[in-house]
């Protein structure tokens, strides 16, 4: 327990940790501020103003059309010789909605913001997790700690559990604050209508999957940095995965006309995990006939269970290798 306390303290005291949490909070704050700024509750006054703006726009369009007709009569060739085709839009084509600042609909809009929160926090968790153990290896702090507690597996697993618990705490607190903030934004600048118990449950499950993503990213960063005994090892792996497996592989698979090539790429799996399923459509394949829809391209559906299984397996393998290497290798 004392080791766990020490590791939790160590993680919280690290400037790197504090800096990246601050950066994440600033980004989330800017996102919330931007959302609040670009949304507005629809009132009788704003609707009347939007109607007036739509009227003005319609009158302007009538004026432009009349001017074009006159120009056409003077020089029909510049209008293709046909002046009858010049007609102004009808009034119903210019609606007041086009001039309304949209309200923030909590039920419709917030799930995407939960995904943004989870993605940002997962990135931060990966970096903090990698740095937490990578800097210890690199500075020699890990060796020092092992002189005090010569139980390698216990030390590494305690560090990992301190990290994951800390990340879970950060996730829960920031998730609650995130939800509260947007509830406030929806109340002041939109609507919270339609938030039935079912809607809250769905939102909660999305949040839990987001928290799972954060923890898995933290564990993967931690494991990769421990294997490489340097923070840069994990960051290098991350960059390598993005450059080689995302951009490079995407190009190669597409050139090779591999079926459902998107299924080999990470975003499809992250998408499936966060929004419960992701359809990978193979537009190059012969279409599939059905009674209801005449011809549709074949679809491969990745479910959140499949994505969760994949992420869990990757996390377990990387952390397992990290545990195996610390147990086997000489610490020099």
């Amino acid at each position, binding site marked *: 327990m004392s080791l766990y306390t020490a590791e939790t303290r160590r993680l919280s*005291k*690290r400037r790197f940790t504090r800096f990246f949490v601050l950066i994440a909070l600033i980004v989330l704050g800017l996102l919330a501020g931007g959302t609040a700024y670009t949304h507005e509750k629809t009132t009788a006054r704003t609707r009347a103003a939007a109607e007036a703006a739509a009227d003005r726009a319609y009158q302007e369009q009538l004026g432009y059309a009349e001017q074009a007709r006159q120009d056409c009569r003077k020089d029909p060739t510049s209008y293709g010789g046909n002046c009858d085709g010049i007609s102004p839009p009808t009034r119903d084509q210019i609606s007041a909605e086009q001039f309304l600042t949209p309200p923030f609909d909590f039920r419709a809009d917030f799930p995407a913001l939960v995904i943004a929160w989870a993605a940002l926090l997962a990135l931060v968790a990966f970096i903090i997790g990698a740095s937490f153990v990578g800097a*210890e290896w690199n*500075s*020699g*702090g890990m060796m020092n700690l092992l002189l005090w507690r*010569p139980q390698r597996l216990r030390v590494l697993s305690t560090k990992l559990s301190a990290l994951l618990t800390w990340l879970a705490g950060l996730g829960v607190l920031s998730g609650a604050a995130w939800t509260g903030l947007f509830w406030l934004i929806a109340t002041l600048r939109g609507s919270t209508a339609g938030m039935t118990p079912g809607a809250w449950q769905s939102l909660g499950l999305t949040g839990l999957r987001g928290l799972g993503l954060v923890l898995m990213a933290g564990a993967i960063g931690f494991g990769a940095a421990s294997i490489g005994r340097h923070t840069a090892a994990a960051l290098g792996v991350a960059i390598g995965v993005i450059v080689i497996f995302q951009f490079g592989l995407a190009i190669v698979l597409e050139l090779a006309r591999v079926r459902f090539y998107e299924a080999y790429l990470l975003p499809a799996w992250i998408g499936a995990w966060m929004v419960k399923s992701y359809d990978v459509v193979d537009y190059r394949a012969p279409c599939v006939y059905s009674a209801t829809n005449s011809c549709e391209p074949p679809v491969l559906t990745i479910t959140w269970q499949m994505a969760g299984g994949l992420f869990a397996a990757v996390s377990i393998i990387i952390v397992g290798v990290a545990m195996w290497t610390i147990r086997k290798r*000489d*610490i020099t």
Partner: protein
Amino acid sequence: MTAVLEISGLRKTYRGRKGVRKALDGFDMVVEAGQVHGFLGPNGSGKTTTLRTLLGLIKPNDGRMAILGEEVPRRLPQVAGRVGAIVESPQFFGNFTAETTLSLLADAGGVNPRRVPAVLELVGLRDRAKDRVKTYSLGMKQRLAVASALLKEPKLLILDEPANGLDPGGIREMRTLMGDLAGSGMTVLLSSHILGEIQLICDSVTIISAGRRVAAGSVADVLAGHTSSAVRVRLEPGVDLLGAAEMLRAAGAVITIERDHFTVGNASNPAQITKLLAERQIYVSELTPVSADLEDVFLELTGTAPVDGASRQVDQVGTQGGWGQ
């Protein structure tokens, strides 16, 4: 006396592209309780490998080790609370203060946090305790490392080059500290290259070369076992020093001529020198045995004495008597 630390037949090999390298080749060491024990060896001789292996950082290929009567590495977790150690250069996370560094270690090791200010005071870092470690000089980091080793009030203190980076005052303080710790009943294993310090501080020594023990025992015993048979010969002023030396050399003496005297390296019977010189009406004004110090013994045993015009390579060990002898 009780052995606090016992190593026998310790072997460690590394496999690399150039083949197998034996870092430890059947190394033995015994440190008795309450002693300050010097651990000497040239660079690459296996000192740090021994200490790392003893402390569970490196897995040995063979051999037996025990600390405070407990077999290690199997029982190391049980004994670690009674062993304070610094291995090689002091290594700490630079952005933490000394106080935070020690406080975290105290937490991790279940040590009373009140020990932190006490050990910082002891090593002279009280006034810099709240500064970040990365602002420390090497000597200050060394002091912090010693403080971390002392934090748990160990029975056995293992210090790898503790004087490294210290100024002369710091070296003297460290020497006094070692003496005080030993006086309080703590056993200290001290690895160092500063042989004069070792000779002053240590009760006993082990010398390692090429992964093997080449000498062990009390400092006096080790020096006595390698007493030089050389004598310094000084003649009366105005006497032909070179002529006298040549005469002795012709009789089989190994002579080294200095500015105002010469040394006979193989004077097993110094009376022979006076006899030969007196026969030529040459009289000596000084005939002094040249006593060996720990440095001479170390250089002889490890074969690492420098030779003019030659560069010794790390891991290069002389043959019997060492090159340059």
